[in-house]
């Protein structure tokens, strides 16, 4: 039976990992901070997938991001999706060579559809994650935002999501600008915007503050995975505990029976 997924999302900008609240960014710590506070050598015991996004507000240096990616993924034996500022096929390739298995795309989904086609042709559609940021709007229900949540695309979000279904993508990462970083729980109403029998797996993001929120998302049939990008809500062993909690409540997450530390060739102290 196919299991649901618990996803951790890291936001990176100019050497630091960031906390985002309604898409406003705050610096939290560097790679060393992250590895210390999350025991990253062991992170794949707690989560099922890692998403790492370059959320720099101005065009970043790709190398700084890929160097971090290489270091972080060295002992991360779960799927890794990376993205942010991918505008050319060779940038996607660079991410895939640095430890990513999938490429996350946001602005180019509608801005540069030919890039999406090219990447799908080269790496397969399963390799592409469409990241979609929705914001509640007074007039239209929801707006479809791009460019780090700053720009609204014309047309209804519902129609955009229908169009998205025909694009060659392997996952939909569905985020809520309004709930982002608030810890108030997911906006489950965004799921009503999806066409019925939406044929792409859905990762729900934006607003998780505790295991109850993960559970509420995972109990929805339309949701394949839930994500948190909150760097402080699940700090330390918070993700481990949330996972155990969810499994104890009967949520079908992959079961971790073996300990990866037992398989390491030359055990080193953590």
């Amino acid at each position, binding site marked *: 039976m196919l299991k649901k997924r618990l996803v951790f999302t890291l936001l990176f900008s100019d050497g630091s990992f960031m906390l985002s609240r309604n898409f406003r960014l705050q610096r939290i710590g560097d790679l060393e901070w992250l590895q210390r506070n999350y025991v990253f050598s062991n992170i794949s015991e707690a989560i099922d997938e890692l998403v790492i996004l370059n959320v720099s507000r101005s065009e970043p240096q790709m190398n700084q991001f890929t160097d971090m990616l290489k270091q972080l993924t060295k002992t991360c*034996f779960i799927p890794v999706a990376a993205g942010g500022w991918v505008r050319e096929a060779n940038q996607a390739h660079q991410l895939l060579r640095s430890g990513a298995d999938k490429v996350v795309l946001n602005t180019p989904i509608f801005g540069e559809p030919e890039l999406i086609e090219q990447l799908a042709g080269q790496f397969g559609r399963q390799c592409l994650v469409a990241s979609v940021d929705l914001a509640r709007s007074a007039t239209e229900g929801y707006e479809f935002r791009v460019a780090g949540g700053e720009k609204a695309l014309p047309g209804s979000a519902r129609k955009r999501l229908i169009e998205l279904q025909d694009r060659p993508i392997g996952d939909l990462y569905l985020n809520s600008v309004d709930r982002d970083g608030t810890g108030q729980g997911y906006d489950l109403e965004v799921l009503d915007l999806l066409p019925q029998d939406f044929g792409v797996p859905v990762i729900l993001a934006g607003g998780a503050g505790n295991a109850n929120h993960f559970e509420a998302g995972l109990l929805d049939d339309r949701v394949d995975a839930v994500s948190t990008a909150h760097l402080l809500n699940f700090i330390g062993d918070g993700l481990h505990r949330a996972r155990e909690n969810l499994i104890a409540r009967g949520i079908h997450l992959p079961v971790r*029976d073996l300990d990866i530390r037992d398989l390491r060739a030359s055990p080193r102290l953590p």
Partner: protein
Amino acid sequence: MTVVDIGLSNTRSVLNAFQYLGAETEVTGDPKSVLSAEVIVLPGVGSYRRAMERLWESQLSDAITTSAQENGTKILGICLGMQLLCRSGTEDGITPGLGIIPADVAVFTTPDVRAGKIPHVGFNSVRPADGSVLFEGLPQNPDFYFVHSFQMMPEGAGGTTSLCNYGIDFAAAYEHENIFPTQFHPEKSQANGLQLLKNFLEA
């Protein structure tokens, strides 16, 4: 162990996993290195046709078949790498494969689960076949990470086939003499995957 690089794969993830287990690793696109390899890993993501074209152009295809069929070199194919070992693929028209496994590759027919979502992506449990070497020491029905839209048809392939179900039963892993492909990604399947890779190295 030697990882065959055709420029379309997540070779780094595969290397990370084998290095964690303490294996000596090498990445190559050179047919000569494949012919002299002790253990071959053929990872793969992307399109069947494009991957086969790369293998033909680089003459890696001949090197892999010679190693696998004449030299008896132990070979692990991962995901698309498993499918490439088969007779043919149907992505973008019919493309001949390496023909090392007597089976064909077909697209998933829309499963009646999860609203028929394709690709099949995520952790799913595998039912290890009796006598499987790859799954030794693993829990019953262990979870592995899959991401694919096509699959090897298990019918008539012989060998030891461990199955997974996504609407239909399909071949999750195959073992026959020196041939050990998996449809899932052991390098992305946490400790279960590392244990399986260890079993492969020790097989």
